[in-house]
């Protein structure tokens, strides 16, 4: 690790200057390094996103990951010294509270070279496996039990229990599967782990394989993640060369090998029985449980399926002990959770937090608050299977039980922050469209229920809604939750039911007053220019993408409603509040 050449990432994150200064700082830094003969000692890279916003030019330095903000050309000599470790640069160092995050799973992501097994080993990699091989399989499962790790795919089933069920089956061979079919819109937790720390996933599965008496691991990765596939395949080759994979691993009696299988693009294949059907070459549809995969899984044999993040937690647990893991998070929900935080948030990106942290800490201390400065309206967790949690529950702790109580779920880790410009009808409709597209069509409540719900949401968003539709939404939603076969259908109504539960007034505004307060349902929005407030600056006319605004400085400006596409550009650019949207 010490031999690694420092890398400086540069990005202008805006707010302090009007134009993008990335290039200017980048060039100046390169010039400075050349002058000092350091051009080969420090690598400089311009990046498209650095995970921080509105902090001027930001530099991120590896190793270490320190962030420096609001950098001017004058700061560069000091920055170079700081990179070389010659001095401290607290003056520019960005002070988002790093203690709010806890990096167990992502510890290596972005700090080691994922293509290098040496980097992984130098960071303590494969120590967990070595330790596991000195223990009995039962002891490994006991260690997992002590850790309190629960499935990170969303449902939160105790991982050790799943392992034990599989281990106790008589039938062989047994299989362990890594579920890398991450499909929630906007979520990329598993992708980051697969791409950033592939060996951690392999090590987790090897430990699991040892504990469950399995010799076959299958990495089921969605085909849309080609880099993840390449990195995993490379990692398997490297691990085999070093004796971590293959026959008689590390001189023990334990043998294990991997196979990579690509998903074919169906969201539902993230559901474990569908995933098994897909691996078997069948139509990716769920089947009833029981029998659970632990009893009858792939090819009818005992199978444990855990998702990427779950597997990536395992090496830490073995290396540092279950108790060390259990010390993080809460009693019921141990460890950390990785979230992909997006939406109306200042610092969007991947975060890893201890379980039990409040939504407020996530949004304000880590995320830097709402990007627009407007009041926070709600937080959505769990993607299309999750629900919307209104701002008044911001101090609720984030754990499996509590999110469930609020009508949402932990899910695999999507987290979307919403301000008052987000329409709850529109959000629910978006997720329903997703579920309509992704329902496998096997069972009636989900197949017809999602389609019908979308029908009623379209009706409401187009101003044709009736109050009776709300009851229909509730009864369809109830039928889907209770009678659908798999998790997709059971949870597909959550976005609808949770927004209806917390924001019924907003629905009624759409239905009764035919208004969309957030101006998202285009059929319900009309933009007009208020002549009295208008200062005739013409900015609205210039910003209109369809030339729907006409007029001049003498007569003022008007919007041709026939042409208007309701994009809201005029509303957003007007500095005088002269564009009315309602």
């Amino acid at each position, binding site marked *: 690790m010490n031999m690694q050449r420092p890398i400086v990432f540069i990005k202008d994150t805006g707010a302090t200057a009007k134009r993008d200064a990335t290039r200017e700082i980048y060039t100046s830094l390169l010039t400075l390094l050349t002058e000092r003969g350091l051009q080969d000692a420090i690598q400089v890279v311009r990046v498209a996103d650095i995970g921080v916003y509105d902090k001027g030019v930001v530099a991120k330095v590896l190793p270490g990951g320190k962030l420096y903000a609001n950098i001017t050309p004058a700061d560069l000599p000091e920055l170079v010294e700081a990179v070389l470790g010659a001095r401290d640069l607290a003056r520019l160092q960005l002070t988002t509270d790093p203690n709010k995050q806890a990096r167990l799973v992502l510890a290596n992501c972005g700090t080691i070279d994922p293509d290098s097994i040496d980097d992984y080993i130098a960071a303590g990699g494969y120590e967990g496996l070595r330790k596991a091989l000195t223990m009995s399989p039962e002891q490994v499962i006991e260690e997992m039990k002590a850790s309190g790790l629960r499935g990170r795919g969303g449902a939160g089933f105790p991982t050790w229990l799943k392992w034990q069920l599989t281990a106790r089956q008589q039938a062989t061979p047994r299989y362990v599967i890594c579920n890398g079919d991450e499909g929630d819109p906007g979520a990329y937790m598993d992708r980051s782990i697969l791409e950033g720390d592939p060996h951690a996933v392999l090590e987790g599965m090897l430990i699991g394989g040892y504990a469950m008496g399995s010799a076959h691991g299958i990495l089921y990765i969605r085909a849309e993640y080609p880099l993840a596939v390449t990195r995993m395949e490379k990692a398997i080759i490297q691990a085999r060369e070093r004796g971590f994979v293959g026959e008689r691993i590390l001189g023990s009696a334990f043998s294990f090998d991997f196979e990579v299988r690509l998903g074919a693009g169906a969201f539902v294949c993230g559901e474990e029985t569908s995933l098994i059907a897909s691996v078997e070459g069948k139509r990716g549809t769920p089947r009833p449980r029981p029998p659970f995969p632990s009893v009858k899984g792939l090819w009818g044999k005992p199978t444990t399926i855990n998702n990427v993040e779950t597997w990536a937690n395992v090496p830490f647990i073995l290396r540092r002990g279950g108790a060390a893991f259990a010390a993080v998070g809460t009693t019921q929900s141990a460890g950390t959770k990785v979230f992909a935080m997006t939406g109306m948030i200042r610092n969007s990106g991947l975060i890893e937090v201890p379980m039990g942290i409040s939504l407020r800490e996530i949004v304000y201390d880590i995320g830097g608050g709402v990007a627009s400065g407007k009041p926070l309206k709600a937080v959505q967790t769990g993607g299309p299977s999750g629900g919307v949690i209104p701002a008044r529950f911001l101090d609720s702790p984030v754990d499996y039980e509590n999110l469930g109580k609020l009508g949402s779920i932990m899910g695999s880790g999507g987290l979307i922050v919403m301000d008052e410009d987000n329409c709850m009808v529109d959000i629910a409709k978006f997720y329903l469209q997703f579920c309509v597209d992704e329902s496998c069509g*096997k069972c009636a409540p989900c197949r017809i229920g999602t389609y019908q719900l979308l029908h009623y949401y379209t009706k409401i968003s187009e101003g044709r809604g009736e109050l009776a539709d709300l009851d229909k939404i509730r009864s369809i939603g*109830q039928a889907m939750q209770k009678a659908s076969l798999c998790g997709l259908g059971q949870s597909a109504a959550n976005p609808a039911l949770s927004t209806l539960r917390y924001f019924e007034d907003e629905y009624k505004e759409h239905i009764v007053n035919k208004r969309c307060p957030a101006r998202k349902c285009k059929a319900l929005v009309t933009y007009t220019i208020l002549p009295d407030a208008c200062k005739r600056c013409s900015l609205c006319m210039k910003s209109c993408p369809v030339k729907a605004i006409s007029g001049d400085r003498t007569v003022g400006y008007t919007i041709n409603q026939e042409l208007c596409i309701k994009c809201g550009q005029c509303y957003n650019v007007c500095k005088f509040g002269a564009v009315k949207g309602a």
Partner: protein
Amino acid sequence: MINARINDILVQVPDGTTILDAARKVQVRIPTLCKHPDLPPTAACGICVVRIKGSAKMLRACCTPIEEGMDIITHDPEIVAVRRSVVELILSAHPNECLTCGRNGTCELQKLAADFGIREEEFAKHLQEAPRDETTRAVTLEPRKCIKCGRCTEVCQDIQDVWALSLLHRGFETRMAPAGDISLADSPCVKCGQCSAHCPTGAIFEKDDTRTVWNALSNPETHAVVQIAPAVRVALGEAFGYEPGELLTRKTYAVLRRLGFKTVFDTSFGADVCVMEEAAEFEERFRKRPTDLPLITTCCPSWVDFMEKFHPDMIRHFSSCKSPQAMLGALTKTYFVEKHNLDVKRIFNVAVMPCTAKKYEITRAGEMYSSGTQDIDVVLTTRELARMIKQAGIDFRDLPEEDPDHIMGDYAGAGVIFGATGGVMEAALRTAHFFITGSLPASVDITPVRGLDGVKECTMDVKGTKVRIAVAHGLRNVEYVLDRVRESKLKGGEPAYHFIEVMACPGGCIGGGGQPYGVTDEFRRKRAEGLYLDDRKHPVRASHENPHIQQLYGQYLGKPLGKKSHQLLHTKYTARPQYIK
């Protein structure tokens, strides 16, 4: 045994029993649309939900085994509300065409909607438009009425191993169709019609030929002849409130005359002819061409189609005998016509069959035109005949009994058991034993070939040779038998079997795809029992002892496998592609 509670009533059931079945023990019927007692659960409809007392979650009763100490609630206001919503959702995607639907009155969705007292359409109508598939002569697909329960694909893929039907596309676009969205005629479909027998709605049904038959019956120029298959007599009654298996042979003859048929024959007589030919064929191979053993029966047109598509290497083992229907059809338009000096062009020859594939069989090869015209003009299934009787307003239950026409209505006991799995084998063995040894087997009741086991194997001592026999029904079970045949051929030496009977439908013809709805193994057992009862009652048990058979051979055919037989009673097989396109 598992001890549990259902609605606070103690229940004790064997390990592995589902909640659905356990509830039946305490007189509770949990509604379901997709679960068929014949098939493993597809868990597709979501109507059978129940809950464990105190739990918010609901479980599907059809596929959840009851566990020790479980405390199940099958009906509470929320459960009923959920079920009702699901039924309403299914109805929202189903056309309101009950009055003009072939399943009007027998539709399971219609019944459920009635039970739930659904009086208005709760949700917006979203129908899936898809064209009707009428490309086969046997089965019609009406995908717009499909509720995607998966029974048809389950039976086509898992029970029959044909894989003609599948569910295409995803989500709301999911559609039942032959794989690859080709027509049914271009698919591997073997026309067994099990899909139609299991479909809960009007999405798959037998091709209806009743109108053609009505037209023929009302034409004064036409002489309408009909034959009924063995399996019809023990199932037709179900459409008129009889128990399955009730033997209604002579009422059926009577009703056919009331409908306007001038001559009523019995396919069981055709079966007797079939036994004569097939037993002779077996004797011939047994004595002279042992390498052509095993001999494999060919009475079942679905099996013939399946073999031609999937196992053409077995063609040389196939009996060249036509099916009893086809034999009787050919004899009707030759022997019967000649004997009574009738004009063959005026004959309209109808066969009532438990089977949809028989509709296909009557044109399957050139030999089906051995009389110079199409030997059988129309095949009606048992279900179609029941509809015709109802249309004609005939009170079936109160009909007097009548006899069939001579001589092709006079069958031996052996002929009528053709309708049950193992029956063809048993009937053929009675006569083959006589042909080879000069005497009947020690007992004419050859019980090891009876019953509903998927594959039945036994041996019979014939003149010192242990004749090895296999009987399979349900096409998936054929694989095992044929694999053993192929293995023994590879090894050389003794064949694995000497004689094999295959019926495509589980249970044989009594469980045929054209029989009244709702068949279960209990129905199959009762129907088979009806046929064995008929056999026991007959003074003549073996086909070669049937004096009318002797008369037919004496007057007309000569001897089995003779020239006339070959003209009229035998056929050829050819390898066929599984997919036309």
